[in-house]
Structure formats: C-alpha cells, structure tokens
C-alpha cells in the first residue's frame, strides 16, 4: 500500500478532475438555455411594448385630430351634386344658406334654387343654422339635392 506509484495517483486525480469538468459543462449549457429563454421573453416583452407605443401614438394623433376638428373655425367640406364633388371652405359662423348659395353657384348656376337643400347624414339642414349649429365638421360630405322628387299627370 505504501508503494503506491505517484503517477497512478496522479492519473486517478486527473480522471476525477475530468469528471468534474464534464459536470461543469452541463451546468453551463443549462445556464445558456435559461439565458436564451430569458432573452426570448425579454424580446417578446419588447415587441409588446413597441406595439403598445404604436397604438398609443395612433390614439394621440386621433385625439389631436378630434381636438382640431372640435375647435377649427374654418375648414373644408365637400358638396355632392349629381355624382360630382366640389370642395368649399366654410367658417363656423357662416349660415347653411351661405354655403348652399355658394354650392348652387358652383354647380350651375342651377335654376329654381329654392327646390334645393343641403343634407348631412340623411337629414335636411335648416338654412338658418350656422355651420357649427348644423354639426358640420371638417371633411364632411354634404348632399346638394332636391327636397322632394315627384311627378304626376
């Protein structure tokens, strides 16, 4: 037992050391997988955050647009007559009749203007209302059409 070859002992120690080295590599790979998993989760969170930012930006733009529409004092609307659209600048204090007259002149002149009215969302607009009172907003499309269409022998 006393005559143990130091080389043999050393070899044994190296072999043990080699085993320990293998176990350490396994842990490292495991850590690597965990790190990859964490990275994927982080990237996913980043993507979600980017989507939320984009959504928030759209909502902000929409809110700004609505705010501008709400408080715009002068803006453009379109009037549609016989399949043709024309743009008109209006001020909120103008009357519907003023816009109606401008539209009739632009599309014509159209004879018998008293038979024509402006319509918004299917409703005839009162001539005496202001643009604001009539609820006309920027970019609205208003219909210029006769109030009544009928015939009879």
């Amino acid at each position, binding site marked *: 037992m006393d005559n143990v070859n130091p080389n043999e002992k050393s070899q044994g120690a190296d072999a043990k050391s080699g085993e320990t080295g293998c176990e350490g590599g396994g842990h490292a790979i495991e850590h690597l997988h965990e790190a990859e998993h964490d990275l994927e989760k982080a990237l996913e969170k980043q993507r979600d955050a980017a989507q939320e930012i984009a959504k928030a930006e759209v909502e902000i733009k929409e809110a700004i647009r609505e705010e501008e529409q709400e408080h715009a004092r002068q803006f453009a609307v379109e009037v*549609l007559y016989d399949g043709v659209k024309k743009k008109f600048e209006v001020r909120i204090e103008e009357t519907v009749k003023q816009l109606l007259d401008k539209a009739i002149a632009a599309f014509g002149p*159209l*004879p018998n203007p008293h*038979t024509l009215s402006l319509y918004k969302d299917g409703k005839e607009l009162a001539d005496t209302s202001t643009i604001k009172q009539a609820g006309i907003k920027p970019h609205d499309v208003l219909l210029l059409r006769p109030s*009544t269409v009928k*015939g*009879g022998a």
Partner: protein
Amino acid sequence: MSVLYRLEWGMLEETFKHLRQCGDGRDECQILWLSSWDMPEVISKVVHPKHAAHFGGFVLDDDWLNKFWMELGDTNMGIRFQVHTHPGEAFHSKTDDEFPILHKPGFLSLVIPNFGLGAVGFKDAYLTEIQTNGGWQEVPIESRLVLT
C-alpha cells in the same frame, strides 16, 4: 350644349319592363338613365328608384334618394334622363315641371303614355329639356337620343 345620348335597345326594354311590372297598369312609375362622367353620352345604367305611387303620380323615397346620391358620387355617374309614365297622354304636368330629380340646363325628362303598356319605343312619348332660364322646352326625341 345639347348632347345626343346613345341608349342600347336592351336598356329601353329593361325600362319598359320596370314601368309595366311596377306600375301594373294602375300606377305611375319612374326610371332614371345614368351614364359615367367619363363618357356622358353613353347611357350605361337603368335605375328603378324606390317610390310611392298611385294612379296619377309618384314620390321618391327620401332615404333611398340620400343613398342613391352617395352612390352616384362613389361610382362617378350622373343622371341624364328621368323617365316616367302617365295613365294616358304623355306630357309634362306642373308637378313634373316643379319637382324633377335634377334641375339643371340640359337635363331631360321623357314621359311614356298609357303606363308603358304599349309597344316598346317612343310612339306618342314626350321629351322635354330644362333650359338655361329654368323653364322646360319640348324637344324632338331623335335630337337627344339614338337607340343602338
């Protein structure tokens, strides 16, 4: 100013079919002839408006008219003729003069006699056109319309 419109024979047949089926020899009925703003002289669509009718007249439905007005804009089409029937003789009544679908110079209104129950064609039909002063003036059918 005046335009000579082209109408396919099949569209005239379609028009008479609507006038007869809807009017059924009892009520007046109206049809509209449309064409594209890109090629106004070629009638390309026959429209049968939603309306209430009786022996001596008709009234277009208001909601239908709103939707139709938007559709004209969306499809780039314009109304060139209104066509309607009378129980007997074809002419333009005071109501016809005052309440057309369009009131602009050059717009045409064709009246078909006897609820459209006669032969398909323009026999005894009456065509009138809005003038620049807003009044209506009878015009020969062949001066404004050619069948193809």
